[in-house]
C-alpha cells in the first residue's frame, strides 16, 4: 500500500512533511520517485504535469489539494477513481477576508478617496448607507464563511445557489437560474465564489451584469471562466458597474496587454485570495488517505456530473 505526493519543487517537501508526520505507518513517495507504479494506491496531487496520472494503473483514489477541481476533471489522463477536493477552514477564512476587504473598500469609498489623495483634495465623504446588500453567488463552505463575516459587519446578505439547499440560516437564498435576475436586482456588491462547471461558465455576462442595479460592484474570487471579460469591460466603461475586484482571469497570468491592468476602476490580485497551507490541510489529507486505503468513502468527494 503506497501513497504518492505529486507537487512541484520546492513546495514538495512542504506538502509532504506534515502529511507524512500524521500517517507515519504509511509509505509516502515523492514525485518523481514513483517506486513500483503498480503499487501506488492513492495519489495526493497539488500540481501534476499532463500524463503523470496515467502512470499508476492500480490507483484507487485521488486527493486534490485545491478547492476547485475543474482543471483536474478535464484532464485526459484522469483515472476513473473517486476524487476528494480540499475543504479547509483556512481557505474559507482567507477568501472571507478577501471578500470583506474588497466589499469594504468599495463601501467606504476608497477608490474616490485615493483619487482625491492624488489630487490633494480633502473632500467630505457622505456616510455609507445604513442598508446595503451583498449578494453571494455560491454558498458552499467558502461562501458561508464570507457571509458570516459580512453579517457581523452589519451588511444585509443574500445568496444565489444553483441547487436547492435545506437552510441558509438567516440568509435569503435564491435558487436556480430562474431566480438569478431577482437575486441580482437587489444586490449592490456581487461576490462570486462559485466552482467552475459547465453551468457556471460565462454566467456573469452582459445580460446578468445589467440585471444588477446601476453603480453595483463585482468581486470575483471564483474562477475567471465565470466572467465574460469583454462584457465586464463594456459594463464598466458604460458606467453601469462602479468597479470590480478580480482575483481570477481567463488567462493567468493575464497578458501584458490585458485592459484590466490599467483600468482605473479594476483592482487586480494575482489569484491569491486563498493560500492553502500544508500544515492546515494535512489533517484532512491524512484522514482521506486512511479512508481510501481502508476502502472507505473519502470526505468531500467530487461529483463528476455536477463538476465539483
Amino acid at each position: 500500500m503506497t501513497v504518492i505526493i505529486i507537487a512541484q519543487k520546492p513546495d514538495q517537501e512542504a506538502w509532504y512533511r506534515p502529511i507524512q508526520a500524521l500517517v507515519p505507518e504509511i509509505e509516502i513517495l515523492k514525485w518523481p520517485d514513483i517506486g513500483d507504479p503498480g503499487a501506488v494506491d492513492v495519489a495526493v496531487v497539488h500540481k501534476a504535469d499532463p500524463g503523470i496520472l496515467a502512470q499508476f494503473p492500480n490507483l484507487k483514489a485521488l486527493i486534490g489539494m485545491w478547492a476547485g477541481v475543474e482543471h483536474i476533471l478535464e484532464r485526459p489522463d484522469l483515472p476513473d477513481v473517486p476524487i476528494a477536493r480540499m475543504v479547509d477552514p483556512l481557505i474559507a477564512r482567507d477568501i472571507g477576508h478577501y471578500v470583506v476587504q474588497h466589499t469594504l473598500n468599495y463601501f467606504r469609498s476608497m477608490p474616490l478617496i485615493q483619487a482625491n489623495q492624488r489630487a490633494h483634495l480633502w473632500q467630505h465623504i457622505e456616510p455609507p448607507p445604513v442598508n446595503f446588500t451583498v449578494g453571494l453567488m455560491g454558498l458552499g463552505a467558502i461562501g458561508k464563511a464570507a457571509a458570516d463575516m459580512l453579517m457581523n459587519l452589519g451588511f444585509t446578505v443574500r445568496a444565489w445557489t444553483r441547487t436547492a439547499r435545506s437552510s441558509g440560516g438567516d440568509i435569503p437564498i435564491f435558487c436556480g437560474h430562474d431566480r438569478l435576475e431577482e437575486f441580482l436586482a437587489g444586490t449592490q456588491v456581487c461576490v462570486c465564489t462559485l466552482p467552475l462547471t459547465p453551468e457556471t461558465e460565462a454566467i456573469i455576462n452582459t445580460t446578468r451584469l445589467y440585471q444588477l442595479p446601476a453603480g453595483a460592484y463585482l468581486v470575483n474570487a471564483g474562477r475567471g471562466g465565470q466572467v465574460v471579460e469583454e462584457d465586464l469591460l463594456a459594463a464598466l466603461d458604460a458606467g453601469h458597474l462602479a468597479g470590480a475586484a478580480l482575483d481570477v482571469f481567463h488567462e493567468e497570468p493575464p497578458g501584458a496587454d490585458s485592459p484590466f491592468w490599467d483600468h482605473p476602476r479594476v483592482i487586480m490580485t494575482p489569484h491569491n485570495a486563498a493560500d492553502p497551507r500544508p500544515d492546515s490541510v494535512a489533517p484532512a489529507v491524512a484522514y482521506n488517505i486512511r479512508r481510501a486505503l481502508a476502502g472507505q468513502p473519502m470526505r468531500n468527494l467530487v461529483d463528476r456530473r455536477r463538476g465539483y
Partner: protein
Amino acid sequence: MAVLLISNFHDPEIWLPAIGEHVPGIEFRFWPEIGDPADINVALAYDPPPGLLATLPNLKAIINLFAGVDSLLSDPDLPDVPIGRMVDSAMAHDMAQYALLHALKYFRQMPIVEEHQRTHTWEWLKAPKVEEHTVGVMGIGAMGRPVAEMLTTVGLEVRGWSGSARKIDGITCFHGEAGLRAFLGGTRILVVVLPKTDATIGIINADTLAMLPRGAYLINIGRGEQVVDEDLFAALDSGQITAATLDVFRTEPLPADNPYWDHPKVTITPHHSGTTRVATTSRVLAANIRRVLAGEAPLVPVDRTRGY
C-alpha cells in the same frame, strides 16, 4: 427653556427637525441666533467659540456633538456644568469597519499588490499568517473596544492597550506606561483610537514607533496631535514603519502642501472613519436632552480631569 445648537458642521435645517421629532415641544435655537441667553438650558456643541458658553447664565449641561472633547475642554471660560459626549454606537461601528478594512489591506499586503498592478506584474504572494500579524488597538474604551471586537470577528489576532486597566474577552489587554513596551513589541498593525488628552498628545513618537517590530503598520483614527509627524516620516523612510493610513491630522483639512499627500507609503482619508448619521445620532441627542432637563446626568459623562 430652549436648546441651542452650536456647530459649523451640522446643518440646522436637517438636524433640528430630526432631533425635535423625538422631543416634541422643546424650542431649538441655532447659533449665532441665540435670542435671550437666559433661555438656554442645554447646549449641543461642536467646537464652540471660546467664551461663548460662559455667556449662557442658565446652562444646565453641554452635550459635545462628537466623541472627542479636547477642543471643548480647551475653552478657558468653560462653565462648570456637566458635559456629555456623543458616543454613537453607529459611529463606533463605522470606525471599527474602517479599522478592519485598513488592517486587512495591510495584512493582505495590498500596497505590494497595488504596486504590482501598476507595473503589470503577476506575482503570487505567500499569504501572511494571522498569528504573525497581531493587530494592536491603542485605546479600548467606548470607541476602541468595538474596534478591537470587530477585528476578532474575522479571526485576526487582537491585543489592546489603554491608560488604565481594562478587561475584554478574547483580547489580551495591556495598560499604562508599564505595559506599553510589551504591547507594542508584539503589535504588527497598530490602530490608534485614543481620545486626545494631555497624556496622549505626541504618544506616537520616535520612541514608541521604535518599540514596534520592524516593518509594522500604523492606522490612526484617534487625533492628529497624537502623532509626532516628523518622527513618523523618519520611521517610514527608515523602513521601521512599512506604511501608514491616517484619517486625522494636526490641521484639518490637511493643507495642500503637506508632505503626507504625496508620500508613497501613506494613505490619507478625510477624517471619515467615524461618520455622523442623522437618524441614529439625533435619537441619542434627544435622549440626552430629556435626561438633562429632568436633572439627570448626561449619557457618557466627561471627566474633566481625565480629559474624556
